[in-house]
């Protein structure tokens, strides 16, 4: 054993010297080699010790300013010492380290399973308390009046658009809708923290991100009505927005598929040396799909500048997070893949803003993925096809809608800064409501996209089978005009 140990050590030594990337291996070393903090063995008696040590964050903490914890540094030093000392006693197990692909692993004679969960849940970063009072003061510098008012205005716009479009579906004017109620802060504040160069890979409950980027109410309405000015040419269900000019990839219903795609897009930004990242949004349910795991692992290995923004809203249709995963949410998965992560109060716009801003800076500067888990709640039904009172208690919905409302909380902060008042509020809401109604009316008057759009874009050019099918279809329409809707120009 001792001989093998020495040999592997020599190999790793060589690898480290030739790799020229000591910082990466340092992170790994710490992660692999450090005695596990705050993770007591199953049914362990040493709980007091573990809990007392590093609180509240049980893992090494990173920020853009301070890349390594002192603990990581110390441990690294000790590993180096052990390694360079030729007289190291191979029989002293605690002093031994195994050079293993990926970095040194310390030996221990204590059989210790890593616990299935940490003592305490990972804390949730917030800036505003429930009353919109700022807990620490370093944030207002980042969010000035202009930005704050724009953020608040867009949150309200999102609320009203959702409410009116939802109602339009109920009236049978559009076939489907899905609101972001309760998640306005994640939508708007995360968007505000990005730049227009950053590429967005959405799930489907992120219309606020697109709104922030300047997609107009008219453009939203056009998509939901699938009319001839819908960029998607009426081919997809409502809410499947996409806008090339806003760097916002088109929504696809299959869950989690955008996550590994985001990594590929981020790798392209990396290779092009762009000062931009990709923001991939997804829900708690999505994290169960294979694509989520593939995406995170790829991102870490490819060192891709991508921010994974998980909207943990407690539910995936009727499935509670308890039936979705048994980890401490999503944030803890990051470390398992070698990804820096943070948990943030998704209903605190300032916290979301500063966390995503910081994440963006790290993703681009350090060329690495970052995982942001935003804790929130899906206040609305899953969609217009769902009645969520069938599977969750009303008071739970009420609590999140009233007591934890992200828009109200942010409003209190903006008002406290004297940037907003009741008069502006009434004016804004009336104004937006009118605009949304107008957008719907206008969208409704447009006819549908022309029939030729049925066959276009399957490929870059029309292949012969589609040529043939198009002309056959046109003959059929001539024979049976009554079979076909009048609002589609033939």
């Amino acid at each position, binding site marked *: 054993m001792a001989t093998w140990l020495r040999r592997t050590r020599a190999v790793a030594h060589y690898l480290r010297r030739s790799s020229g990337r000591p910082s990466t291996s340092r992170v790994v070393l710490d992660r692999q080699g450090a005695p596990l903090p705050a993770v007591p063995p199953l049914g362990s008696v040493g709980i007091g010790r573990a809990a007392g040590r590093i609180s509240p964050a049980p893992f090494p903490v990173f920020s853009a300013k301070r890349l390594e914890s002192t603990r990581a540094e110390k441990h690294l030093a000790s590993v180096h010492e052990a390694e360079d000392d030729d007289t190291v006693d191979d029989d002293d197990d605690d002093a031994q380290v195994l050079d293993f692909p990926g970095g040194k692993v310390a030996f221990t004679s204590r059989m210790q399973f890593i616990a299935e969960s940490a003592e305490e849940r990972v804390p949730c970063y917030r800036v505003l308390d429930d009353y919109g009072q700022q807990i620490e003061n370093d944030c207002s510098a980042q969010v000035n009046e202009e930005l704050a008012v724009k953020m608040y205005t867009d949150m309200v716009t999102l609320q009203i658009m959702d409410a009116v479009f939802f109602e339009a579906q109920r009236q049978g004017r559009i*076939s*489907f809708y*899905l609101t972001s109620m309760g998640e306005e802060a994640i939508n708007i504040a995360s968007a505000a923290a990005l730049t227009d160069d950053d590429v967005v890979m959405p799930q*489907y409950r992120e219309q606020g991100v697109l709104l922030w980027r300047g997609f107009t109410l008219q453009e939203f309405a056009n998509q939901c009505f*699938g009319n001839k000015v819908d960029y998607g040419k*009426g*081919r*997809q*269900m409502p*809410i*499947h927005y996409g806008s090339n000019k806003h760097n916002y990839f088109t929504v*696809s*219903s*299959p*869950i989690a598929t955008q996550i590994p795609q985001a990594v590929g897009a981020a790798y392209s930004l990396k290779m092009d040396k762009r000062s931009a990242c990709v923001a991939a949004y997804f829900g708690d*349910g*999505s994290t*169960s*799909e*294979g*694509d989520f795991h593939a995406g995170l692992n790829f991102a870490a290995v490819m060192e891709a500048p991508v921010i994974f923004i998980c909207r943990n809203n407690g539910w*995936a*249709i*009727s*499935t509670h997070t308890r*039936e*979705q*995963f048994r980890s401490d949410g999503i944030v803890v998965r990051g470390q398992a893949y070698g990804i820096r992560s943070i948990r943030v109060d998704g209903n605190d716009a300032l916290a979301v803003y500063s966390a995503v801003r910081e994440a963006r800076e790290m993703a681009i500067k350090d060329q690495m993925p970052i995982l942001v888990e935003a804790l929130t709640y899906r206040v609305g039904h*899953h*969609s217009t*096809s*769902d009645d969520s009172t*069938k*599977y969750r208690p009303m008071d739970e919905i009420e609590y999140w809608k009233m007591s934890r409302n992200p828009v109200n909380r942010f409003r209190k902060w903006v008002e406290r800064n004297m940037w907003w008042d009741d008069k502006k509020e009434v004016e804004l809401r009336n104004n937006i409501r009118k605009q949304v109604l107008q957008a719907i009316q206008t969208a409704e008057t447009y006819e*549908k*996209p022309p*029939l030729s*759009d*049925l*066959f276009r874009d*399957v490929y870059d050019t029309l292949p012969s*089978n*589609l040529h043939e*099918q198009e002309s056959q*279809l046109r003959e*059929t*329409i001539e*024979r*049976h005009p009554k*079979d*076909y*809707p009048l609002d*589609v120009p033939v």
Partner: protein
Amino acid sequence: MATSAAQRFGRRLASSVPRRRFSSSAAAAAAAATGGSAVQRTQNPSLNLCSAINQALHIALDTDPRSYVFGEDVSFGGVFRCTVGLADRFGKGRVFNTPLCEQGIVGFGIGLAAMGNRAVAEIQFADYIFPAFDQIVNEAAKFRYRSGNQFNCGGLTIRAPYGAVGHGGHYHSQSPEAFFCHVPGIKVVIPRSPSQAKGLLLSCIRDPNPIVFFEPKWLYRLAVEEVPEHDYTLPLSEAEVIREGTDITMVGWGAQLSVMEEACLDAENDGISCELIDLKTLLPWDKETVEASVRKTGRLLISHEAPVTGGFGAEISASIVERCFLRLQAPVARICGLDTPFPLVFEPFYLPTKNKILDAIKSTVNY
């Protein structure tokens, strides 16, 4: 996303499709099999397809303590309400929500089945079955063969709602049956009506082979017919002539049969006698019934919602041409979906409508 989508059918399509009331040979056969009489048959309650599925699942769980029903959102009754009441009645140990992961659902189902259980896995929409493709194609389908029959996962049944609903767009409308018909080792079954759905689903659950069972979600609430209340099964790999005729054979399955039957009725007015066959099991399929019919009529038309190219109609056409070349009086006609993704606003143009079929019937007969 379009959960409970079937509750609101597209205005156009809903109004153009009459309530399905296939003169159900299934109900009669089932009644006969249990010594029931015609009188008994009329006492059977009318059920829609969704409730018929629900009844079959109740029976499956009730009659075999080693049976399980699971999938995304099945606990509270499923987004289409097909699993309502099951968790309450049989407990969370046997009827449960899974994490949102189709490969997990099917892989889990294979393992469960391999240990001698009946695993009834639900994929929320057939459009979302693809993450599970590897588990179905490389695992479930080859489990028996690759082990020299030491192991099998025959207890696995995968249910998935498929097909158009009028407003489902790309990802709530697809008919992916042909992908699975290319996979030796699994069976593919699609029912056309409530009583068929109940009997076929029970057969699938009890069949010692892994099966993909596609449910026509368009018909969940639209199709209503008498469904025998008791436990019965219908044979797999047996097609059924649901309408006899002499001039042309028409083959279809699932929801498309209702459109085809309308075309038959219209053709009848023009003096064309159509024989309509419900294939029911697409893999392995009943060539003999189709062949016998085509030998009689000399003409064949196949219709399905999936894109025409590489659809299962191609397989039927090739097989029948091989067997009946000299009996055919006209080329085989295929009236199917277009070779495009399933479109939202263009859905009425994409679909193989009654009049497209009727035109093809006429041109085939007048060839």
